[in-house]
């Protein structure tokens, strides 16, 4: 049996910057046509990995195949069918948005005819003839996406694409990502915000300390995720703690500021809330502290670097085909 075609396949990837190991035997597989999330805390190695994929940085060890071509560690060269941006996209401030895109198209050997189309797509059509030096961070982000789409990439690498965008911008960016994926573009999105990727990604790789600590589908991640955490303010926290301790499905911790942090799945939380009412404990406030995926994220990325990586013994469902 053959697995789905891989757009990216990385094995044992290592990158050192002096004494610092930024990427530590990282494994990655991104299926062609999928939206793949790269999640991890700041400094986990996501951006370095993307820089390697772009050919900006050469790995010190390991193998990496991008769209079927092995990246040569001795020759860091760009892949023509790979688009996107890494960190905040930057352009020549003394040129207009349109002129910047024209130069990008020239470097690609074509694509000028799509400039108006991509500018409209990222809602910068009315700012096309303004100098980029006056653009906000969000506008540069959108211009970066426009520049990425000029040459119709088969693989789109987006590093924190929603940073600097307002909520509407975030929604539009994610909608655009889904549209592009629908057209067959493989998309890799890096983020430190698990909830942002939850509704858009098909699969995810969690990175911590330069290595992949979890890989698999989003559905599988949800299934493996621990209970979500809620913050509850009651009329009698001591009594509420006693009620929580009586139910093995509920784990409550008293916060020094007078809150209770309760970890429980939906059914157990419902039962706990009902029991609080029966026992005359009023609930003054109840809020979601962490989703199940966020809980998973923290539990995964909180693993000390020296501890065995969960990737070392993956379940058969999420194992990369070797």
């Amino acid at each position, binding site marked *: 049996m053959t697995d789905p075609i891989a757009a990216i396949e990385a094995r044992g990837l290592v990158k050192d910057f002096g004494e610092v190991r930024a990427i530590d035997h990282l494994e990655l597989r991104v299926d*062609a046509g999928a939206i793949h999330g790269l999640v991890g805390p700041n400094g986990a190695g996501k951006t370095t990995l993307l*820089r390697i994929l772009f050919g*900006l940085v050469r790995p010190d060890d390991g193998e990496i195949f991008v769209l079927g071509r092995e990246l040569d560690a001795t020759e860091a*060269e760009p892949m023509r069918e790979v688009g996107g941006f890494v960190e905040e996209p930057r352009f*020549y401030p003394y040129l207009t948005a349109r002129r910047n895109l024209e130069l990008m198209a020239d*470097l*690609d050997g074509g694509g000028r005819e799509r400039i108006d189309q991509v500018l409209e797509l990222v809602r910068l059509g009315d700012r096309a003839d303004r100098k980029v030096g006056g653009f906000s961070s969000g506008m540069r982000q959108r211009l970066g996406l426009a520049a990425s789409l000029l040459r*119709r990439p*088969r693989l789109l690498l987006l590093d924190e694409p929603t940073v600097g965008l307002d909520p509407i911008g975030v929604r539009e960016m994610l909608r655009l990502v889904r549209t592009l994926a629908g057209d067959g573009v493989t998309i890799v999105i890096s983020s430190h915000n698990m909830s942002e990727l939850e509704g858009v990604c098909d699969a995810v790789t969690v990175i911590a300390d330069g290595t992949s600590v979890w890989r698999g589908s989003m559905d599988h991640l949800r299934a493996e995720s621990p209970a979500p955490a809620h913050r509850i303010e009651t009329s009698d926290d001591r009594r509420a703690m006693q009620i929580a301790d009586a139910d093995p499905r509920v784990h409550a911790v008293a916060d020094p500021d007078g809150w209770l942090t309760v970890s429980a799945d939906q059914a157990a939380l419902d039962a706990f809330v009902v029991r609080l009412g029966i026992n005359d404990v009023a609930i003054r406030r109840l809020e979601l502290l962490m989703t199940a995926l966020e809980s998973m994220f923290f539990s995964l990325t909180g693993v000390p670097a020296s501890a065995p990586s969960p990737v070392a013994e993956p379940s058969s469902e999420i194992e990369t085909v070797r």
Partner: protein
Amino acid sequence: MSVAVATPTRSGDDRAGGIGAVYRVEVSKITAQLLPRAAAVVCLVAPFAFTFFVNTQSSVPADSLFGRWIHSSGFSIPFVVLGFAGIAGFPLIASVVAGDIFASEDRQSTWKTVLTRSCSRGDVFLGKTFAALTYSTAMVALLAVSSTLAGVVIVGRQPLVDLSGSLLGPGKALTMIAASFGLALVPTLAFTCVGIYFSVATRNSMAGVLGPPVIGLLMVLLSLMGSGVIVRSMLLTTPFDAWHGLQIKPIQGKPIWIGLLVCVAYGLLSLDAARRSFRRRDFAGDGQARLAWGTVARGTIVGVAIVAVLLAGSLLDSTWITSQHVETSVAKTLSNLVAVQQGILGRTVVPSAVKVYPFCKRESVISGTSSGAGDDWTCRLYVDGPQVGRLAADYSVTVKPNGCFTAEGQAAVIGPLHIKTPAGGTTINPLSAFDGCMIPP
């Protein structure tokens, strides 16, 4: 199990931009930036401003080659500009774009934008290099054209006396100007390559732009320290004087070829070092590199060591400027000038018919042979020829370390500074003071 991987497809979008695309993009960027534009304006306007200014003054910059002709022939202006620009101007022109063309991508954090397009690093390096070389070439050409135009428009198209004492008509003068600026272009391009190395290696625009002119100034200072041939030949500023050889009869090709070799060596070494550094580099962060004190200190130590070695070599190297060289050169120039002067006065004299017997020595030398650069040379010249008869003239001669000299005579013997032409006009007496150049062996 096996790995199935997507295979790349070839489509119209898969064409690479290549070196040509990078070159065109860089030229577009250069023409849109303030500093290169400002430098172009300076190259265009400065010769006009200079010419206008000196023509409002009664004195002339007589210590510069052709300076004494600045009021008498417009064709002297480009040569005076050439002399000034060779000191630091050309290295600065070279570094305006070259020193910034790579470092500006660091400053603006745009490397990730450029290198994630379809061009290889090799394409980017060569495209940027050719763009910087093009800008330097354009600026040298602009300076040549603007200084010539300034001279012709403001002063006029009068004939010019060249460094061998011969008269250059407008056609020959223009050819000589073009050839001289063409020769100055070669070291300018070498300085451009040095600027590119600074830009790549330091990743700092200021270091990239200021590095080449500082090196140029250091080399000029070194060349003033002694008049030996070996160290002087190794300096990248020496080829800026190669055009002197064009004005000496017969044309002296040796300094031109040596200069060409030196420039090629500096250029290729700089570009190779820059290319290696650029290809090896990991583009792992954004922003312009700060000049670390440790790096600056190491660079300074290396620089001081090189300067010290060259200085020692320069001082130890014996001078090639001897009394024999001075006598030969001054005598040949004077015999040509006598013919020119007689021509101005309406008399025809063939230069070869004028015999000059020179005796030159340094006043500071009590005994032994006179040699070396200095302002204490005196020459007694016995002239014998048709129309002029026999006369003896004493000249005070200042010899510069590069072999060029200025000779000033006594009015009582050779006539006043200005003489009247048969047509009733007034012109400079070419014998009152003249410039010339000796070519190193």
